[in-house]
């Protein structure tokens, strides 16, 4: 199991998906309806730029100290799904946009 986890952690940045009920998302909607939640996950080591190397070096030298900086690219959605609609437990329809990722990338 640990090896599997390690392998998952080292996968390159990409789209993953999960079947979740709307209530599980904790957004304040109460609905048993199941939706497909897509998110971005994976490493971005290969996408490091000279910028990241430079920033890391400057941080080591404590030239950059006080601000919070991130010296490596981050796996984030590049595009989101437009909208998803569902019926809640009080029989009201809701439409939520940009709930789920559509495309991922290292930024």
């Amino acid at each position, binding site marked *: 199991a640990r090896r599997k986890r390690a392998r998952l952690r080292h996968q390159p940045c990409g789209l993953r998906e999960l*079947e979740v009920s709307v209530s599980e998302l904790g957004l304040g909607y109460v609905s048993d*309806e*199941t939706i497909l939640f897509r998110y971005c996950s994976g490493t971005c080591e290969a996408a490091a730029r000279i910028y990241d190397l430079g920033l890391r070096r400057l941080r080591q030298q404590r030239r950059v100290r006080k601000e919070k900086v991130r010296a490596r690219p981050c796996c984030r959605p590049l595009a989101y799904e437009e909208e998803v*609609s*569902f019926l809640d437990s009080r029989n009201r*329809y809701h439409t939520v946009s940009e709930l789920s990722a559509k495309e991922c990338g290292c930024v």
Partner: protein
Amino acid sequence: MILANTFCILFFLDESLRSLASPSSLQGSELHGWRPPVDCVRANELCAAESNCSSRYRTLRQCLAGRDRNTMLANKECQAALEVLQESPLYDCRCKRGMKKELQCLQIYWSIHLGLTEGEEFYEASPYEPITSRLSDIFRLASIFSGTGADPAMSAKSNHCLDAAKACNLNENCKRLRSAYISTCNREISNFERCNRRKCHKALRQFFDRVPSEYTYRMLFCSCRDQACAERRRQTILPSCSYEDKEKPNCLDLRNLCRGDHLCRSRLADFHANCRVSYQTTTSCPSDNYQACLGSYAGMIGFDMTPNYVDSNPTSIVVSPWCSCRGSGNMEEECEKFLKDFTENPCLRNAIQAFGNGTDVNVSPKNPVFHATQSPKMEKTPSLPDDLSDSTSLGTSIITTCTSVQEQGLKLNKSKELSTCFTELTTNVIPGSNFVGSPDSVDGRPRPVITLTAVTFLLLTLAL
């Protein structure tokens, strides 16, 4: 050795039965020699290529434009044009639901047929091609969805309408078009206007036209045990926007409004053709074709005649368009008759219930009714012979026929032949013959044919 021979005979017999049966399967697909007519767009092209036909057709269109039928027929030229066109391919052309240029096709159809009919007939002929598929893939899917074979405690809890929404959400196309109509129909415009009804209807039509019926029917016709489920079912089309209105019009007025629109008129005529109560069939549906009835019911959603469930009663299913028979005057009887084709229609009710329960009819009384009781998990497991207890009674009886041979200490080193016994008997279907129901099931375990079983059994008993 005798038994080994029996197997050979059985195998041979089976093969010959199959070869006998194959021609009938061909006939079955063509449905009693019925050939699909040309569509009206094509018929129009054929007519345009011929000078006599095209000039008469032009004349007829001018005759029909802005005049009622009687004044038109009073004109000799118009009448002559109509007579000539009755010989042309335009006369018996049909349209397909969701075809390219559907509206154009229907315009051509009605341009001829309005002149032919009385114009004010109660039931009009459908301009759509009949749905010829045998009963049918979607019912078999429905039987799996409803999972009636599963643990009864589980199925008592489950909400089929919620499951249907889940299935739709997990399918990219269904989710996209569902979200599109929900957001359109749910968008409030102002305090006075609940929504843009026209746009809502259009989005609903796109959903029902472009999403396969295995998803849309499942949401629309799911079976319910409690009110929460039935309310979800009623809410499928967002009735507060697409269905309800400030006032309830008279049903005959609504019908006239619908007949003013070629698409609505056609969908209504199609509903009447496919869901009209028949007293000759066991299901009360024309040709016992549930699918055609459900299809033409769903085909009216998104038009003036949009039907829906009138309440959230889980068991008693009443559907109706948004109209009543108040203010009918001396047309009260006709109005009631029209409305009852929705509210008290045994064909429509049986079709909805059969779909929801995942059961299908087997029209020939000689054949036992196959209740679709297989659970989805059977898809994964190999069908033989471990899960015998799960299978249908008929399937079990055949398989045990074979296993009993095995159990009786048959030292057949030809285990191949034995497996032939299984596979041949269980996967071999005679399509077409007298099966109107669904002989094979979706999970790739077709059901055997009873006559074949009988012969097999007889031979086995003889041999033993």
